[in-house]
């Protein structure tokens, strides 16, 4: 897993069937990458549902959040619509898990991304990373602490 200080590997992933997100386009902004195993976990304990409520916090720290899993764009679209998510979910779908692998957070056995968080600073360096046990939603306190730390610089 990539740690603090490493350069965040660039990527280009679909957020919708016809919209691609390139990490390097977000230079000058803080970026949060939340890798997670799969769409459709139960709602009240769902990590993405929590982040969805926190967009104004992330905004305050000039940070853009992306969820990343190996689900396809169509699956992401249905999930976003069902949960009323207001931030992009990226499909690490083809080649499967390539970005998760580049960040060192791909579970070969399950064929899914691990549950991992990265905060990337405005220069594209990893400022904080965290690997959570697969069944444990890591919440958002770590992300906020990392963003606060960046804010002080």
């Amino acid at each position, binding site marked *: 897993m990539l740690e603090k200080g490493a350069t965040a590997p660039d990527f280009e992933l679909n957020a919708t069937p016809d919209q691609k997100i390139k990490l390097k386009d977000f230079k000058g902004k803080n970026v949060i990458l939340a890798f997670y195993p799969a769409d459709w976990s139960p709602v*009240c*304990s769902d*990590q993405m549902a929590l982040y*969805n*409520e926190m967009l104004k916090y992330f905004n305050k720290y000039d940070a853009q959040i992306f969820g990343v899993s190996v689900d396809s764009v169509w699956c992401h679209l249905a999930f976003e619509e069902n949960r*009323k998510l207001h931030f992009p979910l990226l499909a690490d779908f083809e080649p499967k898990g390539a970005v998760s692998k580049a960040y060192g957070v791909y579970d070969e056995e399950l064929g899914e991304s691990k549950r991992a968080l990265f905060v990337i600073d405005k220069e594209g360096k990893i400022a904080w990373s965290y690997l959570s046990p697969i069944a444990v939603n890591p*919440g958002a306190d770590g992300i906020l602490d990392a963003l606060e730390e960046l804010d002080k610089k």
Partner: protein
Amino acid sequence: MSTLRPEINNHDHIQGDDSASITIVEFGDYQCPYCGNAYPIMKEIEETFGHQIKFIFRHFPLANAHEYAFPAAIAAEAAGLQGKFWEMHDALYENQYRLNGDLFDELAETIGLDLEQFQQDSTSEEIKKKIEDDFDSGVRSGVNGTPSFYVNGSKFDGGATDLYQMLKESAE
């Protein structure tokens, strides 16, 4: 291990004995079914452990996922201004199965609130801020879903049933 931030203070709704040795904080959402399931268990915990327990509820409405979560939190706080936070809290969970926008006034009448005052308080910015502050506290304390429990300031890894079990074991 995540800890409760900020600590319990005079803005909190506290039930139970001041001298209780065990303090339980729940972050909850009135529309969340898991919180609804936890509600009778929390009552049982309070009954079983009586004076040993102090119970605090902070709001953690997942407003995008649950359209009535925030309005319900407002109703509880508005009732609180008339000294009936817990009555409304209980009524909301007991009627969670039929939660909708018309329910709040009905419950306010049932628990004997001054309805006009209740409706007026429900639009208060201060109440809105109190709920947002609770949410903020949850986020800072590492709440990752609802309900989330804190026992004597530390995040408890489990649901209400696990909490009951843990208390029972530690009492033995």
